[in-house]
């Protein structure tokens, strides 16, 4: 199987300080990957590089064997969607209007009017992310869990092949986390590759078969999540020891419960 996205020896620096160096990995169309690492390890930066929003200082990113930088911004937006951590909506957009923006890279007319297929894609996306009933609510009045799903709905409306999410479950209670993970699982089953930056290691173990761990100064670890999260790697990455077994981190009963919901 050919990789969807290949990251080759990528480094990125803010000023003189390198966030990470020489990162390489391949993403396949069926992947569901948890991207883990301490605060400031460069998870957001790496996601932005994968989405073509930042250009790496060294190395290159290939999308379907062609450099990402050789695509037009609109072409990338039709294939790769990034769900950012925070969004500030200036005016009173409804959820419907918010999700409609996901069609922007597909619109062909000069006036930017939505066609029938755009409307279909929007209602499919809202259904999939379970936000149809919120359509006429004001985005700024939604709860955290609702906002997260609305942002995901916008990304689905882009009809991407790769969905990148920056901490999609941050600030959410376990019930709302489970809803977000359920949406991600449905997307992955429908053939969209998913990469999510995740802080909660238990969620990563429970919901993501593959994991990647960024540790400053060390090579990127990737593989089955349980193996990536071995005690020594966790200690190096986060600077704390976690109760663990030789096979990896303990999955607490809570983690199992979330998985089963």
């Amino acid at each position: 199987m050919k990789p969807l996205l290949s990251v080759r020896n990528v480094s990125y620096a803010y000023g003189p300080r390198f966030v990470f160096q020489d990162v390489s990995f391949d993403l396949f169309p069926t992947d569901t990957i948890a991207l883990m690492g301490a605060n400031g390890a460069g998870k957001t930066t790496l996601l932005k590089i994968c989405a073509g929003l930042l250009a790496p200082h060294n190395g290159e990113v290939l999308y379907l064997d062609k450099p990402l930088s050789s695509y037009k911004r609109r072409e990338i937006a039709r294939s790769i969607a990034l769900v950012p951590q925070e969004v500030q909506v200036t005016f009173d957009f409804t959820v419907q209007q918010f999700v409609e923006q996901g069609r922007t890279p597909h619109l062909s007319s000069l006036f930017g009017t939505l066609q029938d297929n755009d409307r279909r894609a929007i209602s499919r996306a809202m259904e999939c992310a379970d936000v149809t009933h919120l359509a006429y609510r004001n985005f700024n009045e939604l709860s955290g869990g609702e906002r997260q799903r609305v942002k995901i709905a916008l990304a689905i409306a882009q009809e991407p092949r790769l969905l990148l999410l920056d901490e999609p479950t941050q600030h959410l209670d376990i019930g709302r986390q489970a809803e977000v993970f359920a949406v991600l699982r449905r997307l992955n089953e429908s053939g969209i590759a998913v990469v999510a930056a995740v802080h909660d290691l238990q969620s990563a173990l429970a919901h993501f078969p593959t994991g990647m761990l960024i540790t400053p100064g060390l090579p990127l670890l990737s593989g089955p999540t349980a193996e990536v999260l071995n005690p020594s790697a966790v200690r190096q990455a986060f600077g704390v020891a976690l109760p663990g077994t030789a096979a990896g981190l303990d999955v607490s009963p809570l983690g199992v419960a979330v998985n089963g919901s």
Partner: protein
Amino acid sequence: MASQVKPVPEAALSAESRSIAVARPRRVTTWIGLPVALILLFGSVMIGTMVGAVPISARTVFAILTGRHLASLQSEELILLQVRLPRVLTAGVIGAALSIAGVLFQGLFRNPMADPYVLGTSGGAALGAAMGIFLFPHSSILGFSAAASLAFVGSLVTITCVYALARVGGKTPTVPLLLAGLAISVVLSEASSALLYLRDEVSWSARSLALWLSGSIAAVSWTQLLLAGGMLLLGGVLSIPLRSVLNALVLGEEYAQQLGFSIEFARVAIIVVASLLTSSAVLLGGVIGFVGLLVPHVVRLIVGPEHGRLLLFSALCGASYLIIADSFARTVIAPSELPVGILTAFLGGPLLLYLLRRTKREYAL
């Protein structure tokens, strides 16, 4: 493309997501709003042409405009076609141009406080006008006074300088852009005030500059009106394709980029179009405050924040608003005139406050 997503299984729906669905908000739809806005505009044109030193009845206005030349109406015909109609249309052009520019700048800066003069246009225009009044008080270009022409040039030069100053390493972040606009505008405004003290015959010049800075629509010829109307038309047409990037910008610059826009290009395009519109308004009527700030606000409260509708309705309502304000400015203290800028503030402030109070919930920008 992976678009065949599965429907949601019932069990996956949580208590939260079962919360009551909210009905479509009661916002004015385009099919009702457009005729209303057009009738409003037509009504304002009628009022504007009827009132004045010599009142003209609606029937007479119709008779003259439909081309019936009656000997008994010769003086009215002259007043209507040579004085009043050009003046009313000028007010309309200025109102529409400032309102569109207001929508563009508020959308670009994601800030409802932005107005058409946000990038220093008013300061540049003031200095240009002052130079015109003091240095070439009796010359004119294409029928425009030296003050108006130099104000036009001044506003364009200022925006170019502000943009160049805020540009760092191929990027033009919005906060430095706003700060540079503010700084330059203040400096230039004070410079034009300083010019006042350099002249002996202060009274006349100061008065005409003050009048100019509060915005006053002078009598214009059809040629001048055609020129400015052309600039409005160009700016209006160019702003239509900006609609989708303005909508994406509601979610933030990074989101807009993620959705496939080049932010630098969009920024330049928006600034160029908005500046063209603002400068055309400056050329015709000086610095008229509050229109470009107020009209997009009020229209947004009525038709919602989607930028296609917002641009269309702001243009129509802005034109009506300034025509009405100018009709008042001409008549309240007749035979002399108030600067129209005073009227736009007096009429607009209370209207905006009323609408803000009436929208029940917290005004989320």
